[in-house]
């Protein structure tokens, strides 16, 4: 059950670079990443800022940003 995150930095997807391969989805411990018609998206309120999705992306489409952005 997602609860509001207290993370100060969260992950976001660059939809121009992202190929929607879905590799990041099972890597996310709170299951915050979803495949939508618009592509892959990180649920901001669920992301805990653990950064486990960042380095494994084959094209570097994920990055960390300040949560209050």
């Amino acid at each position: 059950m997602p609860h509001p995150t207290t993370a100060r930095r969260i992950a976001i997807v660059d939809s121009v670079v992202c190929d929607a391969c879905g590799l990041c989805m099972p890597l996310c411990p709170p299951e915050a990443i979803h495949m939508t018609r618009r592509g892959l998206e990180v649920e901001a309120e669920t992301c805990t800022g653990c950064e486990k999705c960042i380095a494994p992306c084959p094209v570097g489409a994920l990055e960390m940003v300040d949560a209050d952005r």
Partner: protein
Amino acid sequence: MPTADVLIVGGGPAGCVAAWEAAAAGASHVLLIERDRAIGAPVRCAEGVGSEGLREFLNPDGAPWVARKITKVIFWAPDDTEVVLRSRDVGYVLDRTRFEPALADRAAQAGAEIRIGTEAVRMERANGAWRVELRGPKGDETWTAKVVIGADGVETMVGRWAGLDTRVASRNMESCAQYVVGNIEFDPDAIYLHFGPSVAPGGYAWIFPKGVGVANVGLGVVALRSDGRNARQYLDDYLAKHFPHGTVTGLTVGGVISGVTVKHTVADGVMLAGDAAHMINPLSGGGIVNAMKAGRLAGRHAARAVRAGDTSAASLQAYHDEWMDLLGSSHLLYYKLKETINKFDDDFLNRLAATVRGIPLEKRTLGRVMASALAHHPSLLPLAAKLFVQELL
């Protein structure tokens, strides 16, 4: 509300075979849905399969979905020392844009309904069955399904919706990138596997011929072992070094799960098969044959459970047990072997390659290669003993 005995989410090798087998076993309404607008495309795969496993499902002789027949395996050490393994009927590089539709056609001939451009967006349990919301080209439709087979790949959602844990540890995810490269020279009867932390840390680079002069050239890396480059950057550097004059005509990227089968592949009215259940061979990264074998088991068990009127987790557990007996248990061993090989540094691999080249080609079997490795690393002995008992290939 439309009803299916068996609803299969995902039209890849696992899903297509599951649909084929469920329909052939007498399930009366089998629906296979594929999110993309085509079965088999886009290709997110190196497309290599072993001959023996493939032939359990379709005959490759003269088939239009074969890109290239392979009779040799060539290992490259980090310093590019080449080691050829003795030839046999090794396998094939497929054209999956034609292979998957051939599987889907079989499923349809057996009586399954197939819908492309259709995805499952939600699933909830109601009255001993699953209520699944489908989104397709004509809008949304809710189906009732007695059994749902999650063949929805590395990005699986069916498992999540059914309360199964399908998460992957970082050390078990191979980040992969692959180009289709033309105008290059290589032996078109061979697949090449290039090892070494400098080449592809935690994985390997591959050249899988699609034809004379054109091949799938790719690699997989474990991000934890990377020097900061992502998979595509490793691949660009690899290409610049080995095929600087090649013509890149395609790119695909994706994740290959190199862990072992998920602990629970079964829930009430649910079975997971293929990549969704982490059924890829941890050592080779090959998943097509495993997916088809699991799909076959899942399809048969789905039909059996529906016929018996018992689609509970307890009834479907036989699917999990049968998979573990068939291949899942072997994967535990292959996983340990993979972890051991990952500890080899470039220098060890170079020395190993040099040693193996000292063995005459006609005597150069996988067994002798392993023996050479053991001579340098006695700590491999217990693992190797188990391996020869269980038969690697």
